[in-house]
């Protein structure tokens, strides 16, 4: 009888953000579907009410089915039988419940049997599922692949594949290979055109493929023989009903054990080309990866929420020295910081999601009509923010999620180290989030542009101008002083004018900017609701000190000091 949506007021709070009106109006395009589909909204309020009611279903399935199944799924895991991946029993139940409730293909247009939901409620659903079972969230979250097909494939492919999502088809994105991990330009799996069969054929090996035995797979392959880099790669869609795929093994992982991570061998597997040749990596996969990174952001926030709740529950119940341990300063300090941090990464996650929402809406509108100059400008602007905030979100939320899981286990003491409490699983599940879909180090590489071009600083200045009530102004003063330090640190590093030196300091600079940005987001939340005042204060106090440390490190560091670190 648990409901992960209604038991967390942050969710509705994010849904009521002022920008939602613009997003939903764009997404529903003057509510044009209202007379064609019985389930389409008539106006903004109606749409928001639908989001709310559908998320209630998601929350209920998460609380009543997915979360109670998580422990058994973790123990049982998937297995290969007759070249098919068989999910754990609980995984099958989870997937069936979500499919039967019509929750697969949430963001697809109605003509493909989707719900035409904007990104915010979709990402929110991903967060809820992750809180219930982070491993299962991968299987569910791979419906992202539908978005890629929708954005880039031909109408014929869209008509063939997209309606299958709502019926419960699962998906996979087959990118990684043994020698192509972070460096996807090195992908070798071959795609060749077979003139007699009039189809593309895939041959080669993929590794670490989440949900590798999916019904529908997007496969990155080298279509241009003789090429070596990313410009020779194209993206294909493979239908598991066709022959040619061998599931060689399932990895034995540390966490997210319910999610099958497969090694695949393609052997003359027929496949269809998505979009144009040679754009596979440089355009489509980049877009797919941005979606997946946002997905990991949602997963991280979900895991962090679960870890925080486990910690509070345990600290309230556990008695030592005649007191509930939550009454001890070292314990409540950790818990209060955890709570502020969860709210912090959630605010960042949905701010980013809103940016993605606006530009994607425009992108889809542009398929049907020409955008006005003003609209094009706005799309460009929001896409720029989405592209900068996505790696920042992935970086910060996954790192926080790990720290929160660590702290939650710490609060459990010895009991947390045993397999008796959920935190042991949550801790293991959290670990992958800073690694897959681009490591934290690679997120910094993507986000550093925000520092070097001054874009983050511009955004910070924009946030700075927002109206604040008197009782919040003192927090802005802290953020302004942090911004001065940030500017000074950036100028100092840039003045050295050395790429390797910039690489060395870049994470510090990105995190300094991130701390200020999140501080403002919490401050704006506090403007809308009193409930966020305390988390904002707690968060800003902590990152104020953290930025000072980073600032001191940068300022006392010389280019020549690099030598001491080189190995």
């Amino acid at each position, binding site marked *: 009888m648990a409901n992960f949506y209604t038991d967390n007021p942050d969710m509705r709070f994010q849904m009521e953000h002022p920008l939602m009106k613009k997003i939903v109006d764009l997404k529903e395009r003057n509510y044009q579907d209202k007379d064609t589909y*019985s*389930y389409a909204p008539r106006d903004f309020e109606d749409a928001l009410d*639908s989001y709310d*009611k559908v998320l209630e*279903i998601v929350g209920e*399935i998460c609380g009543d089915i997915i979360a109670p199944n998580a422990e058994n799924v973790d123990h049982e895991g998937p297995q290969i039988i007759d070249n098919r991946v068989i999910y754990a029993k609980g995984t099958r139940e989870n997937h069936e419940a979500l499919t039967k409730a019509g*929750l697969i293909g*949430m963001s697809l247009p109605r003509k493909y049997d989707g*719900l035409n939901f904007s990104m915010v409620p979709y990402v929110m659903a991903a967060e809820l599922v992750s809180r219930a079972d982070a491993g299962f969230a991968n299987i569910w979250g791979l419906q992202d692949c539908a978005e890629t097909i929708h954005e880039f494939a031909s109408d014929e492919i869209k008509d063939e594949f997209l309606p299958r999502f709502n019926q419960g088809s699962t998906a996979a994105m087959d990118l990684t290979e043994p020698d192509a991990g972070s460096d996807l330009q090195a992908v070798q799996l071959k795609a060749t055109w077979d003139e007699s069969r009039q189809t593309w054929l895939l041959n080669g090996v993929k590794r670490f493929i989440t949900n590798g035995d999916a019904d529908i797979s997007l496969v990155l392959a080298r279509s241009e023989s003789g090429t070596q880099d990313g410009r020779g790669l194209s993206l294909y869609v493979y239908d598991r009903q066709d022959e040619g795929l061998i599931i060689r093994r399932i990895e034995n992982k540390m966490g997210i054990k319910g999610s099958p991570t497969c090694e695949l061998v393609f052997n003359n597997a027929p496949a269809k080309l998505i979009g144009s040749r040679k754009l596979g990596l440089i355009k489509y996969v980049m877009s797919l990866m941005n979606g997946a990174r946002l997905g990991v952001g949602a997963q991280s926030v979900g895991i962090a929420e679960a870890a925080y709740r486990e910690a509070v529950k345990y600290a309230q119940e556990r008695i030592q020295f005649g007191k509930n341990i939550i009454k001890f300063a070292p314990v409540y300090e950790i818990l209060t910081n955890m709570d502020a941090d969860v709210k912090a990464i959630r605010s960042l996650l949905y701010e980013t999601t809103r940016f993605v929402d606006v530009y994607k809406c425009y992108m889809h509108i542009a398929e049907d009509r020409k955008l006005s100059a003003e609209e094009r400008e706005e799309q460009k602007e929001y896409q720029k923010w989405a592209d900068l905030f996505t790696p920042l979100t992935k970086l910060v939320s996954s790192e926080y999620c790990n720290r929160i899981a660590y702290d939650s286990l710490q609060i459990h003491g010895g009991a947390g180290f045993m397999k008796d409490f959920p935190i042991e699983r949550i801790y293991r599940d959290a670990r992958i989030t800073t690694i897959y879909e681009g490591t934290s180090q690679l997120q910094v590489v993507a986000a550093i542009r925000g520092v070097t071009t001054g874009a983050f600083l511009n955004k910070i200045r924009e946030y700075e101008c927002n109206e604040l009530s008197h009782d919040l102004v003192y927090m802005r003063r802290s953020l302004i002083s942090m911004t001065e330090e940030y500017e000074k640190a950036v100028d100092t590093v840039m003045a050295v004018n050395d790429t390797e030196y910039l690489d060395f300091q870049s994470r510090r600079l990105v995190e300094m900017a991130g701390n200020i940005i999140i501080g403002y987001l919490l401050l704006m939340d506090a403007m809308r609701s009193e409930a966020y005042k305390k988390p904002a204060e707690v968060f800003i106090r902590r990152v104020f000190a953290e930025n000072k440390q980073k600032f001191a490190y940068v300022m006392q560091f010389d280019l020549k000091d690099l030598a001491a670190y080189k190995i």
Partner: protein
Amino acid sequence: MDGLNIIVLAKQVPDTRNVGKDAMKADGTVNRGALPAIFNPEDLNALELALRIKDEHPGSKVTVLTMGPGRAAEIIREGLYRGADNGILLTDRKFAGSDTLATSYAISMAIRKLTPYHLIVAGRQAIDGDTAQVGPQVAEKLSIPQITYAEEVLAIDEKSITIKRRLERGVEIVKSSLPVVVTVHSSAPDCRSRHAKQVMKFKHAKTVTELQDSSEDYIELYKDRPYLEIKEWSVADIQADETWLGLSGSPTKVKKVENVVFTAKESRILSESDAEIEGLMIELIENHTIG
């Protein structure tokens, strides 16, 4: 086989499973305001049983029938969200105070209006009264067979149904002709979740009374979409005899309502001797735990 007409009897009940300290009023009656109103749990099992038959036999129609005050329309919406096709709310001040006999009379009169039907499915009992009488009484009043404690439908065709019953010491498989009243046990499968599209489609479904009270400006919507009207039937609509309804139609008289507070906190172990067992029985009768 063509589709079957299935009627699900459902009741809105106070959620007695999560009883807090405000659950009872000082006078010993249930404080309905303090308890959330929910879909009676075994009626949800009944709805699932009906929906599974519909899944297997496309073209079947599931109608949710409930009796209660205006707010019980929520039960019908809940049914529509999960896959029912339509619903009827029996509501009239004259129904107030009905016991199980009067209730089953009213329901049976409503069902007569829904002829032809193949199957009437209801939860075994409701968690507020726990009588388990309404289902069987409806069957008697309609002069059709009944199968109680159903757990699973093993087979169904236009003429007959085979059902597995869950009994205290095992299961029993029985076959009946149609139409039949089936009451469903909590061991039957849980009801499916609401369906996203059904929720968005039917969230505006309202009774005429609700529409009149509503401030929502969707008048056009109801003109174009007749399925959004939840039918309300009064005593006159079902052509029932008023004297058989409400307090006058209810032979059950509540003598006294007592708030029993269990004081014993720990278990006690008794021997097998008749004397000790008799002593316990007297004690339980005296403190009104039983009897």
